[in-house]
């Protein structure tokens, strides 16, 4: 690739769902989850391009834009977001590696919008989480194990090469601790008619709560204490 490829966004689709119950006792408030999906032209369709990594920088504004759209669609502040995930569906003239371009701009873009700051990864240092009201972790201990920031956990992902209208199950985990069992979830999404052969669908997902009838024990949100993104 000799010069940066422009990101041509053809279509954006948002999906919001409120789950009131799944045949069990309905909680006081429904579970709200949302996905934002951008259909873009695949600049590498139809050929093997060895040097694709620079396109990740071009995609960064898209990651931020989809994350912001999610907050609008959810009608929620960053601090209310408790789970997230990401995915990509590559059209038939592309390759799976084109989907992998989304990891950095999608994952870090979304984490940035939710209050993550570079250099604040594991427990210890205390970061300024200005703009993040009520981080979506535990109520926040003080002292040695204070929450060092928000969106500390890796963003789980799936990717595939698929036909127009292909569905993808986007994994969801807690934004601060991947092992929180109640928030291990997934949401099925698709864009009717996309991706065409020369397109890629890049997807971000946010959730405001645990599974609707979560009751399987394991690490609970209020037990997060290592702040290493896992526990």
């Amino acid at each position: 690739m000799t010069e940066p490829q422009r990101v041509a966004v053809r279509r954006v689709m948002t999906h919001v769902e409120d789950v009131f119950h799944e045949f069990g006792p309905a909680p006081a408030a429904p579970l709200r989850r949302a996905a934002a999906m951008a259909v873009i032209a695949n600049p590498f369709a139809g050929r093997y391009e060895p040097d694709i990594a620079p396109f990740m920088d071009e995609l960064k504004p898209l990651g931020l834009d989809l994350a912001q759209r999610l907050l609008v669609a959810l009608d929620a502040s960053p601090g209310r977001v408790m789970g997230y995930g990401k995915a990509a569906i590559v059209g038939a003239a592309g390759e799976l590696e084109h989907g992998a371009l989304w990891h950095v701009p999608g994952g870090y873009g979304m984490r940035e919008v939710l209050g993550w700051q570079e250099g604040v990864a594991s427990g210890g240092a205390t970061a300024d989480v200005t703009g993040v009201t009520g981080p979506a972790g535990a109520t926040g201990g003080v002292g040695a194990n204070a929450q060092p920031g928000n969106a500390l956990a890796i963003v789980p992902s799936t990717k595939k090469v698929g036909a127009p209208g292909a569905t993808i199950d986007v994994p969801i985990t807690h934004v601060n601790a991947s092992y929180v069992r109640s928030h291990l979830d997934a949401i099925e999404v698709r864009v009717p008619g996309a991706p065409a052969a020369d397109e890629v669908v890049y997807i971000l997902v946010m959730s405001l709560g645990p599974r609707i009838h979560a009751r399987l024990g394991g690490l609970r949100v209020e037990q997060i204490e290592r702040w290493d993104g896992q526990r």
Partner: protein
Amino acid sequence: MPDSADCAWSRSNDGMVKGEVPVIAAIRKLVVQVDEIRMEMDRAVEPPTRRAVAMAVIHNPFAGRYAEDLAELMTIGEELGALLGAKCVTALGIRPDQAQSYGKAAIVGESGELEHAAAILHPKMGATLRREVGSGAALVPSAKKMGGLGTAIDVPLGHKNAAFVRSHFDAIEARIGDAPRAHEIVVAIAVTDSGRPLPRVGGLKVGEIVGQDGLR
């Protein structure tokens, strides 16, 4: 059926749309999608076309039995016309009068019958939907089918004030991965603030609408 009275729609929950008072429909899930098209055939669509579809997964009170009187479903249709219509308008971020086209559809789970979709869609839904989009001289185009989990339905779209506006003949797919279960119905309403992305097949244009008879 495991879900009936105890899962009735809560009036106090987050998903409440202003002005709506659902009374009867037992809603398990609401899904709202907005589809924004910015480019078609590498040409910019300016302004982008935007279509919203709002879906409710409801308990079918007549699942598994034949009932002569389907009035309860008609009332559910009246409620959902308002609820789902408002959800679409809110999701599009427009004033009601800025809505341009609309459509409706239902997918009945296998313990129900096609007539259940008709009872929701036809007698009372149109009136409440039209209130949410400001006006609506034209027929609300519709589709219905029986289906299972993940069944998709193409919701037809037509201009709200003149059915013959050719640029607004369209459709949008509605689908929910985990519905309808056998005893459920998926009800969908679609609203747009635009027609097709690059319309160029002639016919009646928006600027030519008289808006009296619902046709032209």
